[in-house]
């Protein structure tokens, strides 16, 4: 795959061929395909949330507090998965919660991916003291347990979803910077880069058009890992009261609100966590498939 992109812009035929090859290997991994379908369904659900949700996720029905799911005694089909302690429909909150989780994943991965790529490219391409300073700063960020650093950053910035996303992005960005730098160091002295340089390509062009496309495979895999990691971390921050604030139907925040009912109403605790687990699992399954399909080392078998 790396060799196919030796020219700066592959011909349309090559690109289609690459995609076909990628799909061929990705399809081999059944779990990855299931994960992908689930993820697509989740995205559709998130987009169509206002149409799909039977109730408003924030409206409280004072006459229906802690109603169990419909198959339990006392449940009604009006609230399929029951209601929480203030009478909000859990199913609707879960459906809207998908929006938050996907949004968190997209924002965090975009910020940390773009930031990490730029930082890693600069470090790897220029080398010398720039490289040294940048990588030491990355080491410092990585020296802290990620959730702890995110927690402290949120304490500084103030609790809330936006600040939680910024904190998580800062914490996950060094992984991208390191990967990019390592890939750049591996590619920098290859002949095609030399050829582009001799042909008069500027530094920006060399960095972004010549080298970057050949470093993408590990970054894509890391991006899926960060996506699921961001959802988990944001839910953890929400659970600790530092992420999205009530009454936002974010899954981690829902769990935090449900904590005191764990021995009385299992559904308020079980369902939001299950939503987190299944979503993260689907993304990780996809990540495994992507890794297998993009990693040339594993392809020989």
């Amino acid at each position, binding site marked *: 795959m790396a060799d196919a992109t030796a020219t700066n812009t592959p011909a349309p035929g090559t690109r289609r061929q690459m995609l076909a090859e990628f799909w061929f290997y990705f399809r081999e991994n059944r779990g990855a395909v299931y994960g992908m379908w689930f993820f697509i369904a989740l995205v559709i659900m998130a987009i169509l949330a206002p149409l799909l949700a039977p109730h408003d996720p924030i409206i409280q029905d004072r006459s229906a507090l802690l109603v169990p799911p419909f198959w339990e005694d006392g449940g009604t089909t009006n609230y399929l998965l029951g209601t929480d302690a203030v009478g909000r429909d859990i199913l609707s909150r879960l459906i809207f919660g998908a929006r938050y989780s996907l949004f968190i994943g997209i924002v965090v991965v975009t910020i940390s991916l773009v930031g990490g790529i730029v930082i890693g490219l600069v470090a790897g391409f220029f080398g010398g003291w720039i490289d040294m300073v940048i990588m030491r700063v990355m080491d410092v960020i990585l020296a802290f347990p990620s959730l702890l650093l995110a927690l402290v950053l949120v304490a500084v910035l103030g609790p809330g979803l936006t600040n939680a996303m910024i904190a998580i992005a800062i914490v996950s960005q060094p992984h991208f910077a390191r990967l990019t730098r390592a890939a750049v160091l591996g590619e920098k002295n290859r002949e095609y880069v030399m050829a582009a340089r001799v042909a008069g390509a500027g530094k920006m062009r060399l960095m972004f058009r010549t080298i970057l496309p050949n470093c993408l495979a590990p970054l894509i895999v890391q991006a899926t890992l960060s996506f699921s990691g961001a959802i988990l971390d944001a839910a953890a921050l929400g659970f600790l009261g530092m992420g999205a604030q009530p009454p936002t139907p974010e899954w981690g925040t829902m769990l935090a609100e449900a904590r005191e009912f764990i*021995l009385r109403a299992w559904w308020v605790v079980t369902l939001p966590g299950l939503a987190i687990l299944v979503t993260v699992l689907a993304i990780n399954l996809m990540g495994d498939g992507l890794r297998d399909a993009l990693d040339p080392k594993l392809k020989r078998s």
Partner: protein
Amino acid sequence: MIKFILGRLSYLIPTFIGITIVAFGFVRILPGDPVLLMAGERGMTPEHYADMMQRLGFDRPIWQQYLEYLWKLLHGNFGDSIVTKQPVLSDFLTLFPATLELAFCAIIIAVVIGVPVGVLAALKRGSWFDQTTMTAALVGYSMPIFWWGLLLIIFFSGILGWTPVSGRISLLYYFPTPTGFMLIDSLLSGQKGAFASAASHLVLPSIVLATIPLAVIARQTRSAMLEVLGEDYVRTARAKGLSPRRVVGVHALRNAMIPVITTIGLQVGVLMAGAILTETIFSWPGIGKWMVDSISRRDYPVVQSGLLLIAGIVMIVNLVVDLLYGLINPRIRHS
């Protein structure tokens, strides 16, 4: 070897300085006046304010403050907690054994189960055992552990009534804690039932904290083992007619363990992050819960120094792992 150790040590110094800058800067970038923040809602008189400013050194240039901060750190002065009025270091040392005990049990569970499962899964690649355990590992890896802990409480404490919900030991027992490890101290106390109580409090938190490291170690062991099993020297060993047990035990396992040991070392950071959540759920009186409580109580000296101490510990453990890695893999040492 000494050159290798010194090299790794010198490599740590800039990172350590960076960590102190982060911990130092943390209080400065807080919105608002740090002195007023520390005073809390009670407020203070202007004289008291000026006195605090001077005592805390906020009236001097920032680089001087930083150097002074470093100087204090090097003398073991990590500041005092606003809430308990105790030195942060002594609070830390009181609470740390609880976290250590929990983390230790968790990593033992993770290694004792994870490594054999990974090896077996690799040896029986594609079998139902491989598929089931690796699916389970991926589920474990994707687990929101704060929810997993709540589920275990619902099931084992709520429905079955087997385990207590929170704390380290039943209130019925009281004894001196010379080691700080409840399992050992309860045995030393000689009180009947104390050890069983301590152990029953420890089971669920350890399982919760072990979940993600266990999944990571099992997956990593399997892939390391698969890689090694495909190497030429393993094929040679097989071709020589060595018994499968010898091939796996001596030739493959030993080499597969090299990346696995690194993975185990890297779990220390994961354990620390996990301890924050696990201790919060189980009201486990360790440094994870301490940090969360201090953040919500705005006890900034604790947050500042706790951050530094935890990062320092993670760094030292990673250094030890690095050195071990050099010890078992001469290729790293000489490169």
